[in-house]
C-alpha cells in the first residue's frame, strides 16, 4: 500500500473521534506501535533511531490517558518495513497537527497534555530524522 493511501486510511478511522485529545491519543498510539516495532525488529549494531521516539510517545500516551482521554486503539494496516521511517514521520506530523489543534471541549488537563504531546512529537521527529544510525 502506498504511504499516502496508508495514512488516508488511518486518518479516516481516526477522524470519527470527536475530541482532539482522542484523535491525538490515536495518532500517538500508532506512532508508538511503529517506533516500538522498529526498535524490536531492527537488527543493526545500534538501536534504531526510533529510540528517540518511543519513550516520548509512550509518555505522551500516559499523559493523555491521565488527563482523562478514553478511546480505543486503532487497527493499524500493514506497512512495508522499508517504509517505516517515512510512515513514522508522517504519523508524527499528524500527531503534531492534531494535538496542536485547539479544542473548545478539552479540559485543562487535556489541553496541557496535548501541548506536551506537540512538544515531544516535534523533538522526537527532529531527533529521528537527524540521528546517526
Amino acid at each position, binding site marked *: 500500500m502506498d504511504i499516502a493511501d496508508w495514512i488516508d486510511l488511518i486518518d479516516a478511522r481516526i477522524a470519527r473521534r470527536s475530541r482532539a485529545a482522542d484523535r491525538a491519543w490515536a495518532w500517538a498510539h500508532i506512532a*508508538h*506501535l511503529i517506533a*516500538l*516495532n522498529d*526498535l*524490536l525488529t*531492527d537488527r543493526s*549494531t*545500534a*538501536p*534504531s*533511531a526510533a*529510540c*528517540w521516539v*518511543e*519513550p*516520548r510517545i*509512550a*509518555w505522551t500516551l*500516559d499523559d493523555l490517558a*491521565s488527563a482523562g482521554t478514553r478511546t*480505543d*486503539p486503532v*487497527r*493499524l494496516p*500493514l*506497512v512495508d518495513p522499508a517504509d517505516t521511517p517515512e510512515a513514522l514521520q508522517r504519523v508524527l506530523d499528524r500527531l503534531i497537527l492534531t494535538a496542536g489543534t485547539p479544542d473548545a471541549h478539552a479540559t485543562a488537563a487535556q489541553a496541557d497534555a496535548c501541548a506536551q504531546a506537540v512538544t515531544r512529537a516535534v*523533538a522526537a521527529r*527532529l*531527533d529521528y530524522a*537527524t*540521528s*546517526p*544510525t
Partner: protein
Amino acid sequence: MIAADPVPAAPHPTYGEFMDRARWHTTKAFQLLTRAPMASEDHARHAVRSRADLLTGLAAHARAVIGPAHLAALREHPVTRRTPDPTDPRVRHLLAWIDALTEPSRRSPSTANETHDGDVRDTRDRGPVAEAYGAATLAVGTAADLIATHHDGATGAARPWTPPQLAGSDYGLLVVEAARVAALAAAIEPLALRCREAGLTRSEVDLHLPLADRLVDATWSVAAEWGFPEPGIRDITVARPPIRTGDPAAEWTDRIRCVRDRMRAHQDTGHAGVRTLQDVARLGTVVSHILATSRPDASAQQSAITATWRSITEYLAPLRSTEPADRTIRGHVERMLELARPAHTQDTPRARGRLLRAITDTTPVVDECAAIADRLAASSADLWIPAKSTHPYLRSIRTSGLAARRSTEAPRAWPRPTRAPASGTARWVGLS
C-alpha cells in the same frame, strides 16, 4: 497494640508528616489512658518513662532546629543583629519551655525490665501507652534528623540547596510544631490517675509526675507567642544536593545518580511498577544508541549490548499495569533524553564531547539500575500480562477487548545484559 499508622508512607516523607505522626501517636496514648486502666504497675512505670523520653526528645528536637550554637547565644544573651534580645518575651518563653521539657524533678521510674546498671533488658511488654509514646518519640527524633540534613554540621549554617522558606525562616516556626506535640503530652492527667489505679504509690506518682509541673503553662505560652507554623515549612523533606543544570555533562551525571538512588529505594521496598522498569530500559536503549553511534570503531562490541537491551524492551513491551510510573525517575529520564539528543549540543562540540564522556563514565551506574530492575522484575507479582495478540504487525501491543489477567507465576527474570569484553582502550564499553 497500636493501630496502623494513619500517615501514608511517601517516597520522601516531609517534616510535617513526621510531626503529624508524632501527634497522632501522642493522641493515641492519651486516648488509651482515658478509656481503660493500665494492666500492671510495670506498664504504668513504662508509660511514665516513655512520656519523659518523649518530652526529652522534644527538647532535643527544639535544640536541633534552633541549633546548639544559636541556643547558647540566646542563653548568654549577647544582643546582636542575629541573636535577638533575650528579654524579648518570645525568646524568654521559648527558653523557659525548653527548660520545662527537661525538668530535672521529672525523674523516670525504674521498671522491672531494668537492670541495676540502668540498662533495659526487655522492652517488648511495655504496654500500649508506652508503645504509643515511644512511637511518637521516634517520629520526633526522625523529624529532627530531617531538619539537621539542611544544616552544616560544623557551622550550623543552612546548606546552599536548603529551601528558602527554611533557610530564611525564624527557628520558632519549627519549634511551634514541637510545641503542638508537647501540648498533647504535657498534662499529667489522666496518666497520674491511671498510675495510681495501677498500684503506684502516691509518693511515687508525685515524684515522677509532679503536681507543680509548669510544662503546660510554658507550652501554651510558646504557642501564644509564636502562633502557627507556615505551611511551606511543613513540606520540607530531607536535603539533597541539587542538580547542576549549567553543564550537560554534570547534569547527566547528577540525574543518572538520582535515578540510581530511586531504584535503590524501590529495591528496599521490593517493588517497582512495569512503567518504571520500561523507563529504565528506555534510558539504557538510548545510552546504547549514543555509544554505538558515537564510537563506530567499537560498534561490534556494542552490538551484543544493543541486542540485550532490545530483548529487555521486547520482554517489557506487552506488560501492563495500573500502577503509575515513578514520576521522579520519569522526569530524570525525560530530561536526560533531552540532554543527549544531538540537537541539544550540536552547536557546542566541546560540551557534546564532555557529555559523551559523562555518558561513558556513568555506564556502571546504568548497569546498577539494570541489575536492580532485574531483581525487581523477577520478584514482582504486580505485572499484568495481556492475552496473546493475534495481529501480525502489532506484536502483542493491541489490548482493546482483551482481558488482562494476573500472571500466576513470577515473570521470568529480566534478561541480564552481558558486558562486552573490554579491550585496552575500550573502557567505555559497558551495558549501555
